[in-house]
């Protein structure tokens, strides 16, 4: 008979790309929301504020996991809406260094690869962290893009984006918000740098299975 063990406790001091973080936030609830049950109205507000947003140095917020407490409900002078202080938990996405993740190819250019998980797509494999030796050829079908090929034992292994690519997390960065928009690329508040260097097993899954 299997006893139910809370996976949380089992995993304490462990790591994963997903984790729970407890936060406290004070917000004003607009009057048109007051007909909803308080819990729902607050949850809706929190979701609007946090879901799919990066909290600097913490990670990408995936979901509002639960609400621990709601305090307040006072209406301050000069305001037409009650203020609440809420304690709640968010599911945060932030891979650990050394984590092995499967992703899809999004872009392939002279700097390296850009990969995507669907819900997060600022993953970069720089040229230096490609499997050695690799070289790039211009992609005839996509202007500005290249096709990367790994040369091993006189065989060429192409990264064509057809299947999933496994990489190792090298670094997770939270760049500072630039004062001016210098490049054409939109600012990414969180970036994952990955590596495909290994003795086998990293890179497109079709190379290994």
């Amino acid at each position: 008979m299997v006893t139910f063990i809370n996976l949380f406790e089992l995993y304490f001091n462990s790591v994963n790309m997903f984790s729970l973080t407890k936060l406290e936030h004070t917000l004003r609830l607009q009057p048109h929301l007051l007909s909803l049950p308080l819990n729902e109205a607050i949850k809706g507000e929190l979701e609007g504020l946090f879901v799919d947003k990066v909290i600097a140095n913490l990670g990408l917020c995936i979901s509002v996991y639960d609400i621990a407490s709601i305090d307040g409900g006072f209406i301050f002078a000069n305001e037409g809406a009650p203020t609440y202080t809420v304690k709640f938990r968010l599911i945060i996405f932030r891979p650990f260094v050394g984590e092995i993740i499967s992703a899809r190819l999004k872009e392939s250019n002279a700097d390296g690869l850009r990969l995507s998980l669907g819900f997060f797509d600022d993953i970069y494999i720089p040229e230096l962290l490609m499997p050695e030796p690799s070289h790039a050829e211009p992609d005839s079908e996509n202007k500005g893009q290249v096709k990367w090929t790994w040369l091993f034992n006189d065989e060429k292994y192409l990264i064509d984006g057809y299947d999933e690519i496994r990489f190792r997390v090298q670094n997770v960065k939270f760049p500072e918000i630039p004062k001016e928009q210098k490049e054409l690329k939109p600012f990414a508040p969180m970036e994952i740098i990955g590596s495909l260097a290994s003795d086998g097993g990293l890179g497109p899954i079709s190379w290994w299975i």
Partner: protein
Amino acid sequence: MVLSSSATEFVMKILKENMGPLTNFEVLDFLRSRGAAKDPTRVLAPVAPSEFKVYDYLVHSAACSQTRESITEFVAKCKPYKLTKSEITNIINIRPSSYVEIDPLIENLDSRLGESVEELVELVVQVFPPSSEQSKPDENESKELKDIM
């Protein structure tokens, strides 16, 4: 005259960062409990479009066919191999089914596990049934690489 109150300073406070990891399975389970799996229109369930993207990612990963029981079972049964918590996480998330797949997940694989790598791979495959994505082998180049490594 303007009266200001301290409550208008809406500063978010982090009370406890990283309270504990959630396995990929638990995040998938959480999204399922909100109805992510049951709504083909994707507008009725209380799940945001970004949350659906997380759901789509997880449902195409090894987490899709995992359960609380299978994860607990694996964690218990892999104790003899003295893996670190990160290695256990990587194995659970990737579900390697061969030597070459498990190699990048464990440091100093040969010196630490030696002969028992195959045993560990067997354990993984036995405890975690394959998801539909993982049971499609690609014939061509793969056989050569796998044999060489």
